[in-house]
């Protein structure tokens, strides 16, 4: 028969015995390994240690392997803290789309830790960073999100930032956002896609 039986416990015994040696110094050294699987293991173990957060965030910026990045971000999500948010926020301005999107997704898992930073995120002088901040809010499970997005729609000077916020705001679909949407259309009278998007959103909220 082609089927053979092997116990899971036996598979574990087949692993190299040095595999489970622990220790922070070893993990830090392993983070520089040329072998991505060793870096993954080191990143996973280091992510259990709160004082390793700055090091892991710094490593993220240089890490080329998507699988190592991914396990660092997962570890940071699991051990979310104000320090993690502080370490991830600079990546909203990264030119590396994978890293930036990974940071956005990770921040969306930390509503309470992100909340104190929202106002400053939305006040960044770079409109691209403000768009990515709105992207964070779009899936942030926090009761203040509609209000934050409303303020962007009402006051942000950049049309693309407003469009991103309008998009996210409409999903919640409260009729009381309609005056803000009308005001947005008035603020950008010559921008056809805003006029179209606002009309469509209002129609949708009213159920028309």
């Amino acid at each position, binding site marked *: *028969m*082609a*089927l*053979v*039986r*092997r*116990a*899971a*416990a036996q*598979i*574990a015994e*087949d*692993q190299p015995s040095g595999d*489970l040696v622990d220790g922070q110094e070893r993990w830090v050294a392993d983070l520089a390994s040329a072998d*991505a*699987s060793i870096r*993954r*293991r080191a990143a*996973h173990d280091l992510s259990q240690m709160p004082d390793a957060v700055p090091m892991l965030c710094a490593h993220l910026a240089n890490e080329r*392997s*998507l*699988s190592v990045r*991914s*396990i660092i971000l*997962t570890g940071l*999500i*699991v051990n979310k803290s104000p320090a993690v948010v502080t370490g991830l926020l600079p990546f909203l301005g990264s030119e590396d789309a*994978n890293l930036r999107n990974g940071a956005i997704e990770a921040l969306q*898992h930390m*509503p*309470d830790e992100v909340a104190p930073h929202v106002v400053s995120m939305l006040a960044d002088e770079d409109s691209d960073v403000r768009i990515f901040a709105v992207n964070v809010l779009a899936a942030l*499970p*926090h*009761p203040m*999100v*509609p209000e934050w997005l409303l303020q962007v729609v009402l006051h942000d000077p950049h049309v693309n930032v407003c469009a991103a916020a309008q998009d996210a705001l409409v*999903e*919640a*679909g*409260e009729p009381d956002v309609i005056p803000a949407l009308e005001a947005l259309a008035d603020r950008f009278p010559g921008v056809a896609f805003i006029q179209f998007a606002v009309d469509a959103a209002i129609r*949708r*909220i009213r*159920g028309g």
Partner: protein
Amino acid sequence: MDTNTPLAQTDPVISDEEFSRFCEFFYRKTGILFDTQKKYFAERRITDRMHKLGCATFRNYFAAVRFEASGEEMQHLVNQMTVNETYFFREDYQLKALVDGILPDLAARRNNGKPIRIWSVPCSSGEEPYSLAIYILENWADADRHDIEILASDIDSAILAAAAAGVYGERSLQRLSPDLIRRYFTKQRDRSYRISNDIRDSIDFSRGNVVDPQFMRQFRAVDVIFCRNMLIYFDDQSRRETIEAMYDCMSPGGYICLGHSESMSRISSLFRPRKYADSIVYQKPFE
């Protein structure tokens, strides 16, 4: 509450527009899509949850689901919307993908005589791992040329004991032909069916939790993971952690098969989608 009772006059009303918005949101979060035929099914369950939470309007309820930090209500809703049933040859298009695409690909790359390792997790009462064994023996022409290990795990010791016993009612066997039943099962006096000893003894059953790192470290060099209809019940964080742990369990170029309503793209970008037969499966890169 009986979910089959018709909507009462006092039930909250969900407008078409609200339902459409909900469907978009639910699809984005879970990959589960409700077409118009499923509208009543979904509405019924939403209104049940609204009653339980005391929400008078859908708008209030949707805000709770959408913005609640714990995600607890979202999980309640997912549990309501998914149906947990298992039987032999369930979602057999994935079994076809296994023998038509995945196993030939693995075999073509295998020149070291090592076994092909398949892991069914969660294995529930055993229908899935036994289905894998039967389907491979019946449908993969090269089955005799390779050693194939099938591992099966579940968190529930009672269900695992039932899996190891391998005794099933007629309902579980409804997708099997009489010929397969005759060759792989023995009918018991109580009209149940016992799986053959050869098949039963070829599978290693183990109890454990996929979010326990110690448990997951037992599994290495796994070529194919069948992880169907489990992650849908996890929160985002646990889902992500589990997929990361499974990545480490797998051989480079190994595959994960998820349930029909689950999509890896909503969990992780680590894996590459591959299409075999009528099935999308996910392959670990050769990093």
